[in-house]
């Protein structure tokens, strides 16, 4: 900024904040490409290096009426996420009898899985990752029955553009949907954590025998059907997780903050022990905290968003439209990929990239790309994307540390 204002005649000089408003593009460009004479490093207007993220903080479990909650602040963007669990009875599912019959085949195997550990821990992660059938069933239940309901609200006065009380804006709808699709594609929440089982009591022959000796034959015939095993367990209900994100303050990059808050809130979520009560014909829960269980999430996908700032956005077009316009000076860098853009930078670039990565084995394994999205331009090539993945992997380590602390 010093260079930009110094070039202007003193009578017309503006304070940096006004120059930033009047000529945002030139202002950021002056920061990123300082004149070689000034010996200043290339730095963003907000003082960060191009691949540097804003200071992030997270705090979980502060809201009373939620099963799990988290507040995540990334710079000046703040997101509050609350997870509320409600019960979906299978009686309320219109298509349940159909889908139940289709899953009946895998129920036996599933029961076996569930018996291994009632509250799945990290150990059995490998077990059910192996079984494709369980995966399909997982998907059928979590996705098919809409057990995860994320909604993001921007109409909290978080930024001047969003009128409160109005229906969700296009941005809010798209963010809600991105969160939903990422929840489904990462299969973050296991369907097994959300199922409420019922084990019918064995009211079989043993109880009846003393009373009616005469019908021994019939009983025997019945017994042969269910003799070798107890009655098959059945699913009576599901937990539905309402994941509501309120963006309290918006200063660019809402998706990273929203996703981080969802992740932190789900890690904080505790579901009560629930069972089917035959007498009342309803699901009852225990309010005992020692019986409640946390969700065992699959991995820890961390989102990192980037924005591309071009020195001359029309340069690509000009070469096509006016072929002999002459090449620009080659030496200077013509575009920068800015990590975690703030509101000011987001307004200056069309091209966005978002990379969601996870790491195996608690960060010691290899990096897995969960989602990669790029739109709005063509300046980022495959080499750049590879670099972005590396940056995202570094970001994963930071976020893991922050989320573990909260």
């Amino acid at each position, binding site marked *: 900024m010093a260079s930009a204002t110094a070039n202007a005649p003193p009578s017309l000089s503006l304070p940096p904040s006004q120059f930033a408003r009047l000529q945002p593009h030139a202002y950021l460009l002056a920061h990123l490409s300082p004149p070689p004479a000034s010996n200043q490093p290339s730095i963003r207007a907000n003082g960060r290096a191009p691949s540097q993220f804003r200071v992030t903080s997270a705090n979980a479990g502060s*809201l*009373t*009426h*939620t099963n799990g*909650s988290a507040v995540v602040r990334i710079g*000046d963007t*703040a997101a*509050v996420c*609350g*997870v*509320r*669990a*409600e*019960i*979906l*009875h299978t009686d*309320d*599912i*219109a298509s349940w009898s159909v889908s139940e019959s289709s899953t009946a085949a895998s129920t036996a195997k599933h029961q076996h899985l569930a018996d291994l550990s009632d509250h799945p821990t990290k150990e059995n992660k490998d077990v059910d990752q192996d079984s494709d059938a369980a995966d399909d069933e997982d998907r059928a239940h979590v996705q098919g*029955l*809409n057990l995860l*309901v*994320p*909604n993001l*609200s921007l*109409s*909290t*006065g*978080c*930024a*001047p553009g969003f*009128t*409160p*009380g109005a*229906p*969700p804006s296009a941005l809010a*709808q798209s963010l*809600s*949907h991105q969160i939903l699709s990422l929840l489904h594609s990462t299969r973050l929440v296991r369907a097994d954590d959300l199922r409420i089982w019922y084990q019918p009591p064995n009211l079989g022959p043993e109880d009846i025998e003393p009373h009616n000796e005469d019908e021994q034959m019939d009983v025997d015939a019945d017994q042969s059907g269910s003799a070798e095993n107890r009655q098959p367990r059945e699913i009576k209900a599901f937990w*539905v997780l*309402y994941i*509501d994100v*309120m963006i*309290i*303050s*918006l*200063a660019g990059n809402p998706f990273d903050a929203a996703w981080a808050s969802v992740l932190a809130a789900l890690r904080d979520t*505790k579901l*009560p022990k*629930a069972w089917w*009560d035959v007498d009342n014909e*309803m*699901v*009852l*829960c*225990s*309010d*005992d*905290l020692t019986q*409640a269980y946390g969700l065992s999430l699959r991995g820890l996908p961390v989102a990192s968003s980037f924005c591309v700032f071009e020195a001359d956005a029309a340069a690509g077009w000009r070469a096509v439209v006016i072929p002999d316009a002459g090449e620009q000076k080659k030496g200077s860098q013509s575009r920068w990929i800015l990590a975690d853009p703030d509101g000011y930078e987001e307004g200056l670039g069309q091209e966005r990239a978002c990379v969601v990565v996870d790491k195996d084995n608690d960060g010691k394994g290899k990096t897995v790309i969960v989602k990669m999205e790029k739109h709005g331009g063509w300046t980022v090539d495959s080499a750049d994307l590879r670099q972005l993945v590396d940056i995202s992997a570094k970001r994963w380590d930071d976020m893991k540390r922050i989320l573990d602390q909260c």
Partner: protein
Amino acid sequence: MTDRRRINGPPGGTRPAVYASLLQSATGAADRAQRQRQPTDLRKIFLKTGLIPSASGSSYLEFEPSASLAAARANPKSLIPPSSALKLACTVHGPKPLPRSATFSPNLVLTTHVKYAPFAARRRKGHIRDASERDLGVHLETALRGAIIAERWPKSGLDITLTIIEAEDDRWWGDAPDSHDASWGMMNVLAGCITAASAALADAHIDCLDLVSGGVAALVSEDMTGSSGPPRLVLDTDPAEHRSIVSACVVAYMPARDEITELWLKGDSSKAALEDDDKRPGHEALIDGAVDAARGAHTVLGQAVRESIARTVGSA
């Protein structure tokens, strides 16, 4: 009717969790929350301004958790929270020009929006504002309109948005609904909204006659026999801590002018157990109590605004 612009849950609808302990005994096995403060003691208020840089003014307000909630947080045993503490964020956008289609207004046009987060209350709230939220918005607007000097901004609009992140209960969770029930928690929410909005207005440098602050007082009958004894006057009530609230009052009060801009009194205030030499009728005692609570909130508000000014002076 499904909302196509939001992600809807299962079409058959879901039910909130029912806890077995609640079903076994209507009063609940757990100890009910008890007020540990003196009747005239107020809860501490956390109030901070300027947390939302994109707004012209903003504030965040939080009530101190009551004793039962603090104990439950320190040593969690049950999943059912004994009570809750108010948490809300307020933003002020403006003054900004009115849209072209709006008719001429010589004064500042004030719009207030109060919205509960879906997870704010014990019952899940919908995404669309319901009647009680609109009601709160109207009450808040009258409270602030009396304080703002609206003639200074002709043809301008001011948007005040409040997001309730955690609301207060209307009664103790284990109690069955009865005739004394009303939305008592809403009155605490309104008092918090007034104080927070006032701080945000000062943060946005909107000219006001004085900092208007909100306060709540209530007449509660505590004894087991219900309404046999005359109800006592209690300031800054947490509805979860009282067996039955007979009447409650919330005021928006400007100490410098000794003026009330908003008064909302609910319930039967005819019987009140006051001091022997106190000859005030019940409702007057109630209003005076609410004003005292508002005076208490005003000291916090003054400090928060002082910090806000120090920040703007420091940065300029």
